[in-house]
């Protein structure tokens, strides 16, 4: 049974290889191959899941050792897998959602002549992501970690002809690389501390190491997590990543890859438990991002960017939870899963909307779409209710648990975190309602005629040029919204189910927590105020958020061109100026640095050498003059030379 783990990874990898090397002859069937292999690994996952349920709780971890990857004196990096409950959860999420989104993409990318390659990349992503979660040591995890980075790079930049897309892709990869520094240094630290970097030994011995070392490792891991999961201060790439095709945003930048950070922290729980300071750092990052993302989400008019903001903030919740230690890990993962459902659903909905709207992404140009695309409306709506944590839906259970845990983390910290999470819930309700209203309610703000300055009102910096590659290249006439094909709606419906019921299903008898407990440990949170009170507060807050949003957008007409807005709004539109900061400090600064270095290299480093050469030449030119062609002056030099010779000889004798 263990030996199936490798197949889990191999199946999509095979798909990627076939599709990418296969060439045009596969264009016709490529997408089906991709989908089939994704599905295959989902089935494999289910089989393994079944097997795992078969084992008794303590012995559910399955291992498979293929071969030694990097065999060097004292440094043994294995290609070996470990499938425990935590990994299992991810495997199912990844393959499940992944398969759905493959399905969705068949319709969404129908008219793209490079669809085969798209599926190749998707499969590549699945393989890398699965490798990431089933690896049994940090080096192999790093392999997967970078692999998903590559896949995300390829997919964000899939429409390479768009400079914006290419830039976004590059940005995503490089920001992630910054995070990777963290991971690699963490691995080095583990190696120097424990002489190994396999989960078992390292986590086993985490307690014995000095707290300083553990804190260092923890912080480095956190840095890595920040990069992958778009947490402050490395969140800047996620917004731009929306340049990629929507299925990609759904799968990679909402449901799975961005949650890898949470996985990393949860997986390394033992290390963080041994390093309170690192945990605090994690919590802080989570809290900050939670608000940051939410605020950004409120201001964006680009539907995908609004959702991206919300993704950030939701992951903020998870990271925060994970930072709380054993009381939080399970909830973090649980929220992660539910979020996987509803956020994927929301993105697919958004994609479906864009599909019907000529790839228009500016919500201010939507409105009243519920009549035109009912299925999308319903599924999106359910996802909406789930994410704001409407009682009874998935989000409610998972988020509420996190808020409790936050309060329960004790002391002032507890109160602060509790408040932040509450506040976050409110803001979430606000901006999601805004999205909902702007998109599906109100009167339609789009003209069936093609309007010239489509890109005009959109976010500065990102111009969205539809047509060329979009599936609607054919009809240049304005948008005429319509429901999307089955291949797209079915996944949406499935995910909607997930977002409605998953939470409840997990929470009944703490199923999920018990399931994970052997891996992540668990201690019941004891919040200072009783759980019902917290729940009540949550509900109140979210209702408040919804109400405000309704008052703002629901009643009057919405201006097609965004109003100037308050200072905060404008800042939020520009991702709270974080990008501008990067641009000024890093990009500009970097450019100046490199330019000056180029100069230095040319003038100084090279100059020194050329200078010496030149000076020798000059000397030569001067000495040459002595050779003036006059025999008598030659005689003089001889005479002088002899004189010196004699003098020197005598001198030698004298001294």
């Amino acid at each position, binding site marked *: 049974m263990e030996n199936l783990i490798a197949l889990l990874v191999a199946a999509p990898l095979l798909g990627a290889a076939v599709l990418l090397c296969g060439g045009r002859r596969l264009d016709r069937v490529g997408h089906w191959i991709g989908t089939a292999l994704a599905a295959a690994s989902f089935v494999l996952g289910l089989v393994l899941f079944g097997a795992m349920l078969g084992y008794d709780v303590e012995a559910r971890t399955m291992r498979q050792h293929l071969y030694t990857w990097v065999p060097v004196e004292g440094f043994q990096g294995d290609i070996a897998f470990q499938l425990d409950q935590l990994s299992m959860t991810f495997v199912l999420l990844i393959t499940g959602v992944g398969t759905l989104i493959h399905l969705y993409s068949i319709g969404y990318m129908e008219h793209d002549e490079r669809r085969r390659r798209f599926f190749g990349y998707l499969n590549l992503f699945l393989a890398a992501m699965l490798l990431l979660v089933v690896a049994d040591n940090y080096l192999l995890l790093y392999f997967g970690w970078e692999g998903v980075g590559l896949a995300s790079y390829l997919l964000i930049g899939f429409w390479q002809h768009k400079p914006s897309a290419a830039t976004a892709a590059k940005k995503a990869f490089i920001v992630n690389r910054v995070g990777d520094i963290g991971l690699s240094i963490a691995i080095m630290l583990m190696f120097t501390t424990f002489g190994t970097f396999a989960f078992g030994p390292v986590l086993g011995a985490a307690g014995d190491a000095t707290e300083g070392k553990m804190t260092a490792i923890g912080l480095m891991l956190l840095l890595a997590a920040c990069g992958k999961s778009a947490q402050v201060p490395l969140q800047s790439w996620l917004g731009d990543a929306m340049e990629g095709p929507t299925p990609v945003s759904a799968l990679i930048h909402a449901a799975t890859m961005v949650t890898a950070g949470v996985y990393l922290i949860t997986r390394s729980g033992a290390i963080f438990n041994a390093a309170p300071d690192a945990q605090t750092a994690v919590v802080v990052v989570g809290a900050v991002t939670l608000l940051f993302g939410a605020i950004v989400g409120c201001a964006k008019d680009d539907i995908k960017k609004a959702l991206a903001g919300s993704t950030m903030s939701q992951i903020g919740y998870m990271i925060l939870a994970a930072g709380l230690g054993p009381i939080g890990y399970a909830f973090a993962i649980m929220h992660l899963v539910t979020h996987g459902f509803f956020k994927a659903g929301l993105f697919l909905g958004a994609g479906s909307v864009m599909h019907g709207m000529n790839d228009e992404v500016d919500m201010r140009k939507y409105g009243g779409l519920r009549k035109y695309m009912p299925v999308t409306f319903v599924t999106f709506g359910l996802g909406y209710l789930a994410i704001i944590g409407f009682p009874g839906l998935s989000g409610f259970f998972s988020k509420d648990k996190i808020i409790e845990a936050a309060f329960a983390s004790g002391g002032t910290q507890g109160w602060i975190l509790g408040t932040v999470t509450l506040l976050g819930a409110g803001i979430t309700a606000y901006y999601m309602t805004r999205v909902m209203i702007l998109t599906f309610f109100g009167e339609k703000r789009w003209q069936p005629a093609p309007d010239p300055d489509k890109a005009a009102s959109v976010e500065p910096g990102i111009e969205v040029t539809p047509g060329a590659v979009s599936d609607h290249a054919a009809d240049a006439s304005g948008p005429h919204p319509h429901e999307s094909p089955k291949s797209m709606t079915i996944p949406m419906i499935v995910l909607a189910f997930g977002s409605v019921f998953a939470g409840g299903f997990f929470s009944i008898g703490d199923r999920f927590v018990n399931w994970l407990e052997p891996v992540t440990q668990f201690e019941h949170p004891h919040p200072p105020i009783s759980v019902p009170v917290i729940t009540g507060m949550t509900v109140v807050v979210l209702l408040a958020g919804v109400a405000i949003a309704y008052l703002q957008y629901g009643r009057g007409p919405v201006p097609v061109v965004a109003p100037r807005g308050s200072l905060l709004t404008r800042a939020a539109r520009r991702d709270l100026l974080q990008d501008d900061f990067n641009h000024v400090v890093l990009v500009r600064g970097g450019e100046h640095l490199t330019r000056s270095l180029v100069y230095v290299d040319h003038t100084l480093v090279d100059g020194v050498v050329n200078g010496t050469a030149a000076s020798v030449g000059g000397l030569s030119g001067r000495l040459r*003059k002595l050779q*003036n062609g*006059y*025999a*008598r002056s030659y005689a003089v030099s001889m005479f002088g030379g002899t004189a010196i010779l004699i003098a020197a000889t005598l001198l030698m004798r004298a001294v």
Partner: protein
Amino acid sequence: MNPVNYLYLAALLFTIGAAGVLIRRNAIVVFMCVELMLNACNLAFVAFSRMHGNLDGQIIAFFTMVVAAAEVVVGLAIIVSLFRSRHSASVDDASLMKL
């Protein structure tokens, strides 16, 4: 009388000759100065030969004369041909090649 004085004289003559070589422009004269130096050497040889009471020095003097004579032949040949083609025997005029 002390032979050492002859040595001083020889040194003097030698220096005069050398100075002539350095100062004079006319190739012939320069060459004469060289001859003077050679003769200074002869004087020195003879003087030393006297001091040491062996004949080597005097023999050498004869050799020197022969060599000097040969030098004259060659030298004059060269200088004359130079003169004929340049109509000047100045060593400073002969400075086509420099630097």
